[in-house]
């Protein structure tokens, strides 16, 4: 077998454990807020329970369970009759109790699936389970990394934030699929209103990757092939892009090893984002034993009726389809306009008032384009959406030109935080009335006899020059088409 055929015959098999922070008002087992201010003082959002003080007890926040049920409905998972919690015992300095309350044999979701598109093809990945658990605190290594710090500080503000761990089957065959899946997963979670991607540390991914002979993937059961192959667990991935890079790197690294006849070591590796490589955690990982057992402080919760009782909003795929039909949008526009729930909601508000095409252009192209250019999200201007509606209103009523609306008003709205009318006023952009245009046209003709001569001798370019003069004189508030017409009329008289 040559190296090249060997390369062609190898395939990556990837499974994911995705941790997402669930958006709830309070932590999962106490009444502390989950709302992290940017400049908050460490250990300011804590109480005896999330600090793990001796004697304090957890009380389940049913809002977190509700969020879990919503996810379950969205991924078409089974919701059990009763859900319960276990303790996962391990020692780590950020873990207040040195055990984590999590779910073990009765997770809130089991046997789901999620469809997504990659390279123009639809793929479906099976989700083995999704369970609820508490986030640990966070460590700050003073003066360097974990290895070089003089000392380490612990901040428990994050401790007790509700997490959902979503465990997929090993259904991925490449890093691109993983990236597309994560994007789709985030989209769905945001639509459900249970996730905020902009929050720091809201997504954390551990991935298992093995290399197997491609032929073994033909059958339904790949477990035998996976059994034979050593796998690595890649940790410390915190974005879609990071997942793609880390797994592409890992796939290449393992394939190279296999092609050279070397054994892939079964180990845990750390994704080093700045260097773009995975690094062995070195310390010989012994088989972890978390000594799971039932958390007696939390009685099992009956959730059998919850799936029927809890409503979830229209999900992105369905909404995309509806947009295409209801608003007669192209696939691309529909896709852009449903990229987040906020965008889609805003589009529908605008489309209810204006022509759906105009609304699509303004929301999908202008607004999203300018926001994207500034690295902003619709959520960053959530409170100002009525101002954008007003801007479209100004254009639609021909009070300002489209060009000015796009290039001046929208930009200053975003850059300077001004309301649209204020920009129009400050820049004097109100569309100039006919008399003013006529006056400017006559002035231009009077002051540019050479250009008039050129025009009369048949040089069309001279007309453009004169249009430019009029536009300048009216500070761009005149409509270029109208100016063109008036000039011709005056000159041809």
């Amino acid at each position, binding site marked *: 077998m040559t190296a090249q055929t060997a390369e062609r015959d190898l395939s990556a098999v990837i499974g994911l454990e995705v941790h997402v922070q669930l958006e709830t008002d309070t932590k999962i087992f106490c009444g502390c807020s989950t709302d992290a201010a940017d400049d908050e003082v460490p250990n300011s959002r804590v109480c005896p329970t999330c600090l793990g003080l001796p004697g304090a*007890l957890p009380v389940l926040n049913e809002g977190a369970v509700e969020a879990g049920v919503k996810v379950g409905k969205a991924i078409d998972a089974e919701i059990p009759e009763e859900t319960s919690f276990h303790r996962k015992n391990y020692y780590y300095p950020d873990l207040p109790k040195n055990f984590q309350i999590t779910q073990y044999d009765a997770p809130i979701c089991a046997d789901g699936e999620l469809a997504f598109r990659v390279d123009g093809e639809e793929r479906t990945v099976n989700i083995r389970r999704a369970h609820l658990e508490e986030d640990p605190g966070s460590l700050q290594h003073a003066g360097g990394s974990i290895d070089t710090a003089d000392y380490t500080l612990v901040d428990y503000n994050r401790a007790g934030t509700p997490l959902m761990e979503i465990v997929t089957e090993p259904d991925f065959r490449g890093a691109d699929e993983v990236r597309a899946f994560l994007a789709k997963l985030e989209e769905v979670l945001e639509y459900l209103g249970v996730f905020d991607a902009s929050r720091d540390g809201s997504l954390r991914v551990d991935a298992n990757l093995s290399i197997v002979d491609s032929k073994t993937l033909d059958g339904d059961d790949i477990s035998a092939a996976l059994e034979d192959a050593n796998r690595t667990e890649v940790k410390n991935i915190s974005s879609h892009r990071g997942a793609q890079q880390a797994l592409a790197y890992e796939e290449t690294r393992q394939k190279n090893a296999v092609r050279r006849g070397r054994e892939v070591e079964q180990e845990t590796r750390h994704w080093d984002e700045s260097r773009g490589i995975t690094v062995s955690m070195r310390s010989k990982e012994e088989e972890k034993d978390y000594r799971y057992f039932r958390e*007696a402080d*939390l009685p099992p919760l009956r959730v059998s009726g919850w799936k029927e009782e809890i409503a979830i909003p229209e999900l992105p795929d369905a909404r995309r389809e509806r947009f295409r039909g209801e608003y007669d949008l192209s696939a691309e526009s529909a896709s852009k306009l449903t990229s987040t729930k906020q965008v889609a909601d805003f589009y529908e508000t605008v489309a209810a008032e204006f022509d759906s095409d105009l609304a699509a252009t303004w929301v999908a192209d202008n607004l999203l384009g300018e926001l994207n250019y500034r690295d902003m999200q619709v959520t960053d201007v959530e409170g100002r959406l009525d101002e954008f509606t007003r801007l479209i209103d100004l254009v639609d009523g021909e009070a300002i030109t489209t060009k000015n609306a796009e290039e001046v008003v929208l930009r200053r709205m975003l850059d300077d935080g001004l309301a649209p009318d204020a920009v129009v006023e400050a820049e004097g952009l109100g569309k100039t009335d006919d008399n003013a245009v006529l006056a400017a046209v006559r002035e231009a003709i009077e002051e540019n006899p050479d250009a008039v001569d050129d025009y009369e001798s048949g040089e069309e370019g001279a007309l453009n020059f004169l249009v430019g003069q009029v536009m300048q004189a009216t500070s761009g508030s005149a409509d270029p088409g109208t100016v063109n017409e008036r000039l011709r009329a005056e000159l041809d008289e």
Partner: protein
Amino acid sequence: MSSDTDAFITREEIDPTDEGPLSGRTVAVKDNISTAGVPTTCGSAMLADYVPPYDATVVERLKDAGARIVGKTNMDEFGMGTTTETSAFGPTDNPAAPGRVPGGSSGGSAAAVAAGEADLALGSDTGGSVRCPAAFCGVVGIKPTYGLVSRYGLVAYANSLEQIGPIAPTVQGAAELLEVIAGPDERDATTREHGAETAYASAADGDVDGLTIGVPTELVEGADEAVVEQFEAALEDFRVQGAETVEVSLPSVETAVQAYYVIAMGEASSNLARFDGVRYGPTAAATDDAEAGNWNDAFAAVREGFGEEVKRRILLGTYALSAGYHDKYYDKAQDARAWVRRDFAEAFETADVIASPTMPVPPFELGESLDDPLQMYLADANTVPVNLANLPAISVPAGETAEGPVGLQLVGEAFDERTIIRAASAVE
């Protein structure tokens, strides 16, 4: 007032916040129940300097009911013991049998009441820790139904088994204290509304006419002769007052001690994991390992600070939950627990309460049992089945042997504290 018994670890008064049924009365509180601003050591060097920032729910309820708290009482370290001798702060003498242990683990609370140093006391009972010292010190102790009293603020030893319970010189006193601390608490999800009558004090009316008292042979057979003698006398007393005694069988209790210790130690290994030197216990010595960032070694060094009994239970509990042993020990113990529960349910088909000696032996001499943990564990044979079954039980004085007081244990159905209080009040 004498303090010869060393019943307290911390003597500090906590004022009531209101007038109430306990106005004018003093209460001693076991040192594993959190008191805001007052040290709560659990009898451990690990928590010698720990001062909770919050009150346990029962402490709030005491203060609201007008009680004056007079101090925090001595106990076996983290509740792990039957003699109060595993306390890092030294042993407590038994006021009712000087030179002997007061029982445990709530030995300080029972001794304080027996010596008149407090009118009432709170203990906690994981496998007999209220009833055993009540029996040894000749006072009354109640282990409530699991879920009747909030555990919020009780430093956990084995959280699926334990309850805070009252200790008093009389059944009436214990019932009054129970009435104050019982009832649902939104901070403890295992407390619940149960629908049963909760006027406990008024139940202490001594009326046992027509009551059926079940006597499980299994809990009497192994007991000391002198203890059995007093127990039989108590049964005769019941019959004289119109109660009927019948034999019942609890075959499952044979495995109860083993099951209890597997479950309790398993839970303890997890509950006590947080004491790792990061926030509790002596600061990790600046070992080379700790400086190299190896916190596991730093944790291990700090955890050497636990007493021998605590270390033994953490190690055994960790073992029982480990892969490969989980099925063999922990899961089997849970099966045994379910079996004990079924046995009691069956016995309650014929009996209203179930009676046995609280402790099969009279109080040990101080120092006697320290080297023989197994002897100590077996002494819990009559009390632990009650915790496994989540049931209420009371220990009431029933005479004395030459070595000290004997306690009579009466077990009731879940949330039927009134019946055992009524029965106990007939023979005190």
